[in-house]
């Protein structure tokens, strides 16, 4: 695709927070949050899938709400809080959602996993004890072509129990 018919928009400085750390980048207007995370900041945990808002692979949290980073302009994130899959683990310790996905087969090829984890994180932040129907609804915007979803729902339900302090 050749966009050379127009002069390039200038790279503007843009500061926001990623996983609690302040970051400063300079990017053109057309750069998406997904591109900024992967290409400017080297955070390749967030995946690019369809790039059109239909698959959920690029899901991140923006000010606590799950959004598709392929459809957010990086410059509109100035001053805001971004959370990505890289921010889930606490050092070497996996987040309960990550541990449950690993233990229960919630991840196979793994491409949808970062997006699934971020959708699940938003769900459990708002609803610590969702039933399976609510879990399915909450991951309705995340496509998985491997698992058939059952193990993902199992993993989120299990992680929710762990996070509530219930015996596993």
């Amino acid at each position, binding site marked *: *695709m050749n*966009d050379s018919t*127009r002069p*390039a*928009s200038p790279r503007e400085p843009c500061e926001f927070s990623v996983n609690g750390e302040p970051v400063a980048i300079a990017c*053109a*207007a*057309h*750069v*998406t949050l997904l*591109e900024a995370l992967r290409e400017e900041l080297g955070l390749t945990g967030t995946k*690019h899938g369809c*790039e*059109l*808002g*239909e698959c*959920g692979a690029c*899901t991140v949290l923006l000010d606590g*709400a*799950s*959004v*598709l980073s392929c*459809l*957010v*302009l990086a*410059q*509109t994130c100035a001053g805001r809080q971004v959370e990505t899959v890289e921010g889930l683990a606490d050092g070497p310790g996996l987040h309960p959602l990550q541990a449950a996905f690993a233990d229960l087969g919630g991840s196979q090829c793994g491409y949808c996993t970062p997006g699934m984890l971020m*959708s699940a994180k*938003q769900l459990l932040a708002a609803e610590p004890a969702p039933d399976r129907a609510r879990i399915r*609804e*909450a991951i*309705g*915007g*995340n496509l998985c072509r491997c698992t058939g979803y059952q193990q993902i729902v199992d993993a989120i339900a299990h992680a929710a129990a762990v996070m509530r302090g219930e015996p596993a």
Partner: protein
Amino acid sequence: MMRLPDFELRRPRTLAEAATILAGEGPAARPLAGGTDLLPNMKRRQQTPRVLVALGEIPGLRTFTNGAALAIGAGTTLAALAADTRMAQYGALAQAAARVASPQLRNQATLGGNLCLDTRCSYYDQSEPWRRAIGCCLKKDGDTCWVATASRRCVAVSSSDCAPALVALGARVRLVSREGTREVALEDFYRDDGMDHLVKRPDEILSAVDVPDAQGWRSTYWKLRRRGAIDFPVLGVAAAVKRDTAGTIEAARVALGAAGSRPFLVPQASEALIGRTLDDATIAATARRVAARAKPVDNTDFETRWRKDVATQLVSYALRELRGEDLGAIRRRF
């Protein structure tokens, strides 16, 4: 990778500032709200505005007031709308908002954006190489409508869920430009033209939606789509009725979405309902009359004939729900 074309991004802090930018830049500038419709379309080069005017930092666009009527800022996200307790009286809108796309998209997408959604078509919502391979189409860069090759009019389909719901609820929209504010009844906001489907001028911003008091009304929205998430509607049925204590219908409004290039009211439905009760015979007669107005064309998911047949069912479900039947089990299949 499918990257956005380049553009200039403006980030006004007030509505007046945004209106001034749009007035100065002309039709090459577009307002940007949630971006969930415009940005994919730009990635596919269906639209290539030179300037985007981001509305997300204008605080007034998110106000939500509930006096005698409901005034909803156009920048209210669909997620916020679906979760708001004040929406209980406006069932059709709450259900429509909750059924748009997916949780992530509802967190980003706004009510104003959903009302201004570009029309859709299986020959238009494709990548640029795909469209070029068939010589493009009437709506963008071509001169043939591949859905109806004899048609001189673009038949791309209105795919908003909130629009038919708000048409049934009798909503009006406020359009702000540098010249001032005008109000338009939502049913008059749309044209039956897939290429030029909004009466909104390029220099106008849809700032708010006013919904009249729904005291005494019940309303609902039913959406047909292949999957229970993500998909645009293939048919949307919004119905609102006001009944007296004996159950006789005093007023009724039924609107269809995704059944043409604009959402539209079906006056025959009101005629079939007013003065009657929601008994089986009335529901069946109304459903037939509404379905007769649905004229789907072959430009979206599902077989055209089936989409027309199923319209009768969807209207019946909506009216049965309004008379108090629990259709939860059927709803879960949609």
